């Protein structure tokens, strides 16, 4: 009788967990504080058109957002980017979030941090650090991020986090150019004292979609990672918790993107645009309000973009009559639009989509060809052909 006394909900955006049905207010807020980042990872989830530093919200704007988020009933704030530590006022933003009763999560690449800064962030009220790694092999990691010395620095940052007795999550985006190192990535997470490891297969939007052929693993490689994670989860029970994010090209059902549109997660861009998901700007016909013009609660409840695909009323067949419609919400609107031209169609990740077979084949074909060069993530980078990365 005693097994599950504490039902668990993930507050991150790519999770398969569903927010409780009573939740009318969002659970989590993803705050993209800046699109500036010294790293150039080719699978970055930021839009291909990066927002410039001179359009970023001010400190006072973010302080106001945090206060409003607390009042709206948001529980957790994910401070992300770009690289959030590139903002010199991060301490003030964290302090405002803590004051508003929000649980604060820093999603960082780590390379700009010093121990002193991390200590200041902790003192400001930071609850948790999620540190990304590109690989355990330093040379390969620095090549993927196009940032020399990054891998060595990250190990140091992980040590500081633990020395300061803060909980640490390692986030390892997985793709064909690091996938064979998964067992070593798991060992790395244990070694640095992480309590959680996100084994996150790259999600193919934005930069990652541009680089899909350079990143997509084969089905066999993907299945291999699932088996490794399953075994490690059991072996490391009570030591390391796992979040396993699958590539939906190899899934049978689509993921419940964002836990349902406008249902549990809210996203704010560096310039203050409020989005139902970080890729929503790729969809036509949506109006995105700014926190500069309108209260956050009003945008969440009544904003056109949030209402557009909230719930299940907007659905067409096969979603409309599908018994899974309240489980996966028809998958991802952005992927549906990108591949079918209509965001209200079912996501091709779903086996009921007429495009599913063709779409799944793309992954199979690309993953067996020689990987092309990366198109590195940087301002204007998507317009260039794949050149040698510049040092940041």
């Amino acid at each position: 009788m005693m097994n599950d006394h504490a039902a668990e909900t993930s507050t991150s955006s790519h999770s398969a967990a569903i927010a409780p049905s009573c939740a009318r207010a969002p659970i989590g807020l993803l705050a993209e504080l800046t699109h500036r980042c010294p790293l150039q990872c080719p699978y970055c989830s930021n839009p291909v058109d990066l927002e410039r530093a001179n359009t970023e919200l001010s400190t006072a704007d973010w302080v106001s957002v945090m206060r409003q988020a607390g009042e709206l009933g948001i529980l957790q704030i994910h401070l992300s980017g770009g690289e959030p530590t590139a903002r010199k006022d991060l301490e003030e933003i964290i302090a405002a979030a803590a004051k508003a009763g929000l649980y604060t999560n820093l999603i960082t690449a780590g390379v700009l941090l010093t121990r002193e800064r991390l200590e200041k962030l902790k003192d400001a009220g930071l609850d948790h650090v999620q540190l990304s790694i590109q690989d355990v092999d330093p040379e390969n990691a620095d090549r993927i991020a196009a940032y020399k010395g990054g891998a060595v620095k990250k190990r140091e940052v992980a040590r500081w986090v633990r020395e300061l007795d803060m909980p640490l999550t390692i986030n390892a985006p997985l793709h064909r150019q690091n996938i064979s190192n998964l067992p070593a990535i798991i060992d790395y997470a244990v070694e640095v004292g992480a309590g959680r490891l996100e084994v996150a297969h790259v999600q193919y939007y934005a930069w990652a979609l541009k680089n899909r052929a350079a990143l997509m693993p084969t089905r066999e490689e993907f299945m291999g990672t699932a088996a490794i994670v399953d075994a490690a989860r059991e072996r490391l029970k009570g030591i390391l918790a796992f979040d396993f994010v699958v590539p939906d090209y190899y899934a049978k059902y689509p993921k419940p993107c964002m836990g349902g549109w406008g249902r549990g997660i809210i996203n704010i861009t560096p310039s203050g645009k409020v989005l139902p998901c970080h890729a929503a700007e790729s969809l036509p016909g949506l109006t995105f309000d700014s926190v500069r013009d309108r209260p956050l609660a009003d945008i969440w409840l009544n904003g056109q973009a949030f209402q557009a695909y909230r719930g299940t009323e907007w659905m067409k067949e096969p979603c409309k009559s599908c018994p899974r419609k309240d489980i996966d919400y028809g998958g991802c609107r952005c992927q549906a639009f990108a591949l079918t031209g209509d965001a209200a169609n079912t996501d091709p990740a779903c086996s009921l989509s007429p495009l599913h077979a063709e779409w799944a084949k793309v992954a199979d074909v690309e993953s067996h060809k020689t990987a092309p060069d990366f198109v590195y993530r940087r301002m204007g980078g998507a317009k260039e052909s794949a050149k040698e990365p510049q040092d940041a």
Partner: protein
Amino acid sequence: MPDPGQPTRLIVEGGSVLALPRHIKLKHDAGRGRWIILGPERVYEPDETAIEVLKLVDGQRSVAAIAHVLAAQYQAPADVILEDITQMLQDLADKGVVR
């Protein structure tokens, strides 16, 4: 032999003295009328039993002592309660909610 430098799983027993780490927050979620536990990228919704137990987890009392408090409070046999809450706390320890 386990490497002394390696982290190991915490096994909860009657003599274990547990606490909520600083980064785990048990709080009332007024907007939704429920108690919640906030942790790294997680929200847990504890049931009434778990809430009663967690309120007694203070870094001082042992699990057995908590069972005694609850036994007196609910007039139930302490050994049955001890078995139940040991299992529950093991699950919460595995989730990182207590340590």
